[in-house]
């Protein structure tokens, strides 16, 4: 049964969280097929930076351990290389599921400090505002999401790279490029957000 907020399990292997994930995460229904072979976790380029890896994350979902799942850094360290997706013997769309879990984690407030979440926020702002991404703008927004001082520090750290990009005429210096129909796009996004919210509320 769907719910606006994913249900937290009571005891181990309380299946309410697992069933919510199966039904509400894009591709989540295939998690049921996972046979815990480890192919996905073994394929992660930065698997060593993950606390659980996708394989164990799926077992935690089955075990109803919502908190452990949504606070896991596994979600955030996916580089989207899609190795696991093409190798999974049960054809589970691992990357998409991790993306879906990331959205839930952000929405439910489990991941305020995640770099990816901050970066995504900056990125999405640019998309919504201009219809296109301006790398310069996104990067700046991202850096300053850590506060003014940290933002300046990171900006300075990356100045040499930025300078070279400018020199190679690959960093745009004028106003951000924009799609003329950015307003249309915003309307579409707003409608899509509305649909998702409605669906969550309907359950």
């Amino acid at each position, binding site marked *: 049964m769907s719910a606006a907020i994913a249900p937290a399990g009571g*005891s*181990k*292997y*309380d*299946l309410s969280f*697992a*069933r919510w994930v*199966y039904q509400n995460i894009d591709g989540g229904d295939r998690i*049921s*097929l*996972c*046979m*815990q072979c480890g192919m996905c976790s073994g394929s992660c380029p930065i698997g060593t930076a993950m606390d659980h890896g996708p394989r*164990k994350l799926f*077992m*935690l979902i*089955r*075990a109803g351990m919502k908190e452990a799942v949504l606070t896991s850094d596994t979600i955030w360290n996916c580089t989207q290389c899609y190795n696991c997706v093409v190798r999974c013997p*049960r054809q589970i769309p691992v990357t998409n599921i991790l993306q879906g879990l990331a959205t839930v984690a952000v929405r439910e407030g489990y991941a305020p400090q995640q770099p990816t979440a901050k970066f995504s926020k900056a990125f999405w702002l640019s998309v919504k505002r201009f219809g296109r991404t301006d790398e310069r703008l996104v990067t700046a927004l991202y850096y300053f999401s850590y506060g003014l001082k940290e933002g300046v520090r990171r900006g300075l750290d990356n100045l040499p790279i930025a300078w070279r990009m400018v020199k190679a005429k690959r960093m745009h210096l004028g106003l951000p490029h924009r799609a003329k129909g950015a307003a249309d796009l915003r309307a579409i996004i707003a409608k899509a957000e509305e649909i998702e919210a409605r669906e969550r509320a309907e359950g």
Partner: protein
Amino acid sequence: MQAKKAGVYLCGGCGIAEAVSLDALEAVAVKEFKVAHCRRHEFLCGEDGVRAIRGDVAAGTVNQVVVAACSPRVNADRFQAEGAQVFRANLREQVAWTQPPGAENTAILAADYLRIAIAEAQKSSPPTAHHEGPHSARILVVGAGISGLTAARAAARAGYHVLLVEQSGEIGGHARRWSKRMPQKPPYQAPQDNDIDRLIAMVEADPRIEVRRNCRVVKTAGGPGQFTVTLRQDADEPECLIGAIVLATGWRPYDPEKLGHLGYGASPDVVTSLALEDMLAARSLKRKSDGRPARTIAFVQCAGSRDPNHLPYCSSVCCGVSIKQALQIREADPDSSVYVIYEELRTPGVAEEFYRAAQRAGVIFIKGGVKRVGADLTVTMDDALLGEEIALAGLDLIVLATGMVPNAAGIAGAGEEPSPLPEADIDPLAPIAVAGCTGAVPAPRPPATQIIVAGTPLLNLQYRQGPHLPILADGFADSHFICFPYETRRSGIYTCGPLRRPMDMAEAAEDATGAALKAIQAIRNAAEGRGLHPRAGDLSYPKIGLNTCTKCRRCTVECPFGAIDETPDGFPIVNPTRCRRCGTCMGACPVRTISFDNYSVEMLTAMIKAVEIPEEDDKPRVLVLACQSDAYPAFDMAGIARSPMNAFVRTIAVRCLGSVNLLCISEALSCGYDGILLMGCKSGDDYQCHFVKGSAIAQERLSKVGETLKSMALESERVQSVEVSIADGGRLPKILDDYLAVIERIGPSPLKGFG
């Protein structure tokens, strides 16, 4: 009997003529053995050569064809000639291909092989088939579960009459209890309707099948084609003549009372798979304790199985059964929660689809070992994949997936004394071989538990070897050979279904069909006096000269197939249709009074003595008695590889090392052989002898040779046994050279020249 007229046919092809002088060989045949008819051919297996042989036989010139050419393993069909016996001297693989051409020793070796073949012919007569006593083509099927019903129906459909006996009052066995069965048809995802009623109806309607309920076998005597089986049904004890027997006595669930550690008995809501099956069949999944519907259910796999303290083997079907039941529960109640706790999930073949179907249906599989099950139905386990101990609480029902125990013995009935089962023959946990280890890898041994309770013998065989069928290991009926899984040590009696190994209904049905074929085959061959596997079609059988028999009983004891009974006054009596023609009895007989028409101690002795033993010290002679099925082909393999072989070795093929009589050994020693090697198959737990015990018996007999050697003032090294498999062709030259080195060290036989 017709007079023997031997003809010797010398082939010069494939390098033989280049290696040895055919003139010299002809001289051996004609001058030494006075063979009247000797022909040469440069290509004997070609059309002309074969025509010449068959012409001579047809003309009555020859009725014993001695082919001095290639190995007996090749061209057997070409050299067949209607109405003649064929003997082979292997001058190709074992002379021309392994010896230097033109050498003196090569010539002597070839001459010796020809002598051996002619000597064999002189002592051999064409076998006459055994045709005595009554013959029945009726098949007895014991047990009317899925295996027995299928076997009966399969045999009947091929035209055979079947007597199907069932101990209980109903036919159908365990299969009748299943609400559904595992899928056999694509896409292999859903439990399938149980069609046992259809099979029962077909069996009951089949005019060729006679079903007897509440009926059991109390006694079985005789052999294929002529079993006399005594039944007991109510007060009756009818006696039937039976051609062959299919044993389909199936299995029983492992006693759950022994599974207290998994919570059985602690709560009425800890049940077995079978108990759950009854609930599913009744479409009422309610707790015994309080009648509440069971909605949260855990299956505990390997309940008793794969456990050295209980059933050491995997019961094979439990994973599939739990998956089937879990799917049924999920389908009936979409809000149910179903867990399967497993250690190794085993759904081989297309059953993997079934596993995935259960996962897709939301069944949760948890890998790990159960530590305890509380009376409150909390399962405490090591969750291997979460990496922590967890308590699975809130369960309504726990299902123990109990394993299968083979019914290799009957359940003791009124009036019958249970007799202890024979010891299992092999240790399935014998350590593997490791390089450099003289002993073995230390393997944890399970406590020796007798998992099979003693029961009445299923057939109560009136055999010298006892009333039970041999048990291989873990209580399963004898089925040792990978290539020949149906072969048992009791001819004409075939086991099928979970009696042989744990298997599901579909496999059991397939297995039963195969067993029915073997039964039909046994009947047809018995009718013609032909032997069964592995000497299929052999007409010869052992004949015992009772006037010289000392009633020592060695033949009856040693026969691996229990083919020889004893008369009340202690004389051995052969059941030719049970006999597999290995000759172990012949090897056992201390007074060499057991012989086949075409195989005897006298013949082997003559062959051994046919070899000329030179007196020179630098020309030792080693006799190799090689098992025809494995060691002898290994010599051929060495020949095909053109591996140089020691020229002092004389190889004689024997049916089985079990047929080698110690008298052959002592005769060989006394005529001056410097050494004797017995080459047979691997013995022990993974024995490879097709006659079960041939090489083991030979080794045991050899252990007694010591005294004889001592009395002849000979060293113990002069007689040794080696285990050689067919794949050891590459090792053979070294084995022989090493042995010749031993002979060189101990020197020539002191008996040389006295023979």
